């Protein structure tokens, strides 16, 4: 999910990692205003991939770096299996349920409806009758959005268009709207969900870092020395690290993984986004003329949250702060010197190296929740470390 925000203007880019049949894809998203055709756009998936690569947590080797990127966006609030589309909508039935189809568009490979409703039961029934599988309990959540006068952005894949366009994946949908509400409705996604949901939010703003106002937002641990073998296992490392941090914080926080002025990066995991890419993402205040220097006016915040209904009872509400301090989640690899020499300094170095590697092992175990002995084994520290497992008195008289 990319959120471009300045003043009351928001451009939301919804990407998802949906892997099923296109006909089974559906989203229902509450939106604060009616959405006209011109406010909807289908984006290139590469945009989000680039944003991800640019802002992903990374490894740093000495002063070099290793671009590491891997996480796909999870799908947003609700995705539901559905059967073939019905040939025609029964307008009178729709009306009798208190549901109004405010607008109907086909944009790219999607059939999009903007619905308003007067009663949640009617909306739930309508969605079911139109082959959206609504989880039990959704009705009360829908009711609170209806009472707040929110509309519903409902999209399915138009199979004909999808085939014609020939994409093997579903492209992100973009919606631009103007509303003082700076929030993400996540409650629908937690109704009856099998487990926690995962969400990445890339916020592009003008002033500074974005944070939640109704949950804690903290920085992911960063700048920690970890063993060299993490380079080969960065994906499991990162997944375990995130899971462990979520556990430590009792799954009640959002994590900042990246917060940076987009004018520069040091080091850059991927090239910064071009002005054209920023425009395509909806950064409306950046000019795409080459000499305008607009990228300096974009601050990127990457938030990562794992949430469920118990720990995140209400929707995420955000604010843009004036914080322009740069932050990136990075983990440091120190390659040891491997030369052979018997001088005093080398002995001292080797002794300190052992300590350092032990510290790296403990860091890694603490970050990820992995067993420190497993880490030592993988680092080939087991033999050198055997002494440390002995009781202190066992080594006195040896």
């Amino acid at each position, binding site marked *: 999910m990319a959120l471009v925000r300045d003043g009351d203007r928001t451009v939301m880019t919804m990407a998802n990692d949906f892997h099923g049949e296109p006909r089974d894809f559906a989203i229902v998203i509450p939106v604060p205003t009616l959405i006209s055709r011109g406010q909807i756009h289908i984006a290139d998936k590469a945009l989000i991939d680039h944003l991800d690569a640019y802002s992903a947590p990374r490894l740093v080797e000495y002063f070099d770096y290793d671009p590491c990127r891997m996480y796909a966006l999870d799908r947003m609030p609700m995705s539901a299996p559905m059967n073939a589309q019905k040939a025609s909508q029964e307008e009178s039935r729709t009306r009798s349920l208190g549901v109004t189809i405010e607008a109907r568009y086909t944009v790219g490979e999607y059939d999009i409806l903007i619905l308003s409703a007067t009663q949640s039961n009617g909306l739930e029934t309508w969605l079911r009758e139109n082959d959206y599988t609504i989880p039990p309990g959704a009705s009360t959540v829908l*009711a*609170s959005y209806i*009472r*707040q006068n929110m509309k519903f952005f409902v999209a399915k894949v138009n199979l004909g268009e999808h085939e014609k366009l020939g994409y093997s994946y579903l492209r992100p949908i973009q919606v631009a709207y103007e*509303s003082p509400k700076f929030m993400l409705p996540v409650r629908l996604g937690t109704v009856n969900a099998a487990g926690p949901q995962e969400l990445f939010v890339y916020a592009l703003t003008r002033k500074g870092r974005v944070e939640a106002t109704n949950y*804690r*937002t903290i920085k992911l641990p960063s700048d920690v020395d970890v063993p060299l073998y993490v380079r080969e296992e960065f994906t499991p490392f990162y997944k375990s690290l995130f899971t462990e941090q979520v556990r430590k914080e009792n799954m*009640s926080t959002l994590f900042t993984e990246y917060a940076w002025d987009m004018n520069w990066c040091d080091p850059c995991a991927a090239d910064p986004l071009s002005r054209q890419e920023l425009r395509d993402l909806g950064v409306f205040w950046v000019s795409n003329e080459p000499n305008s220097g607009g990228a300096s006016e974009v601050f990127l915040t990457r938030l990562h949250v794992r949430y469920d209904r118990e720990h995140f009872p*209400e929707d995420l509400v955000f604010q843009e702060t004036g914080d322009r*301090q740069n932050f990136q989640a990075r983990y440091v690899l120190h390659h040891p010197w491997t030369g052979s020499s018997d001088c005093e300094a080398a002995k001292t170095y080797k002794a300190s190296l052992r300590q350092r590697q032990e510290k790296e092992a403990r860091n890694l175990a603490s970050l990820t929740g992995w067993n420190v002995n497993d880490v030592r084994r993988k680092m080939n520290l087991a033999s050198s470390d055997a002494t440390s497992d002995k009781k202190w008195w066992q080594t006195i008289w040896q």
Partner: protein
Amino acid sequence: MKRFDPRLYQIGALTLLLLYGLTALDFDTTWVRAALVIGAAIGAQWICSRMWSVKFDPRSAAISGLSLALLLRTNSVLLLVAGAALAIGSKFVIRWRGKHIFNPTNFAIIAMMLATPRVWVSPGQWGNVAFFGFLITCLGGLVVNRASRSDVTYAFIVAWSAVLIGRSLWLGEPLSIPLHRLENGALLLFTFFMISDPKTTPDSRAGRILYAVLVALGARYVQFKLFHTNGVLWSLAACSLLVPAIDVLLPGDRYTWKQNGGSSWSVSPPWRWHFAPGLLPRMRSAASMSRRATPKFSIAHRRWRSSATATAP
């Protein structure tokens, strides 16, 4: 018997909250910055005390400094110092009938947020894990402070809970939502240390309850109509402007720290007329008007008259 100054308890409680925020909650500030803003507030109090020739007492300034360290965030050290100076300066400059109008911390935060986009308040940073610890700390303040103006705190808790729970019931939301909103450290800080500031609340109990309800309704408007963050802070600043009117409509006994054993400059200091002599005629007429309208609140008028008499040239 000389009673314990409630401000000392407040300083202790706020210091504990700040230590907890800095160590366990990853507040977006540093020890140095926290020390700087507290020092700046006390320094500003010293300067203002010299300028207005009143006895220097660092206690209230320490409370303002600690509150700013807990709430105000910025990347700029200068803006932090400016915030502290504004807080303390507002106490001396923005006055009406011998009371300052705004809670100093609240004024500084709102003025800074209006003046520059480079400051912010992070209401979400408190989380709700240690909420009950905060709550107990704050409730301790009420016990220590029992003789003073806890009624405004109780009234605000009731009014704000009614707003949040009422809204969720109306929307059909589960009660976990308003409870989550109430279990917020920043809200506690506001409720127990800011809105209850005895020097800026109305003089009468009825006035204070009205004030608390107005603040809750204003916060509802800001948070749920304007969808703006920090509704309670904006609302408190706006409602503070109504306090002089509430005091005229519902007069009562003026608060002074001296009642509780403090030794600071008091509510009706003699120097008042020296820097704001123009207020005197207006205040006399306001007092005589209110005396006619509500003769039963005679204590307030006696107090007012006595201080005016003492300072008459």
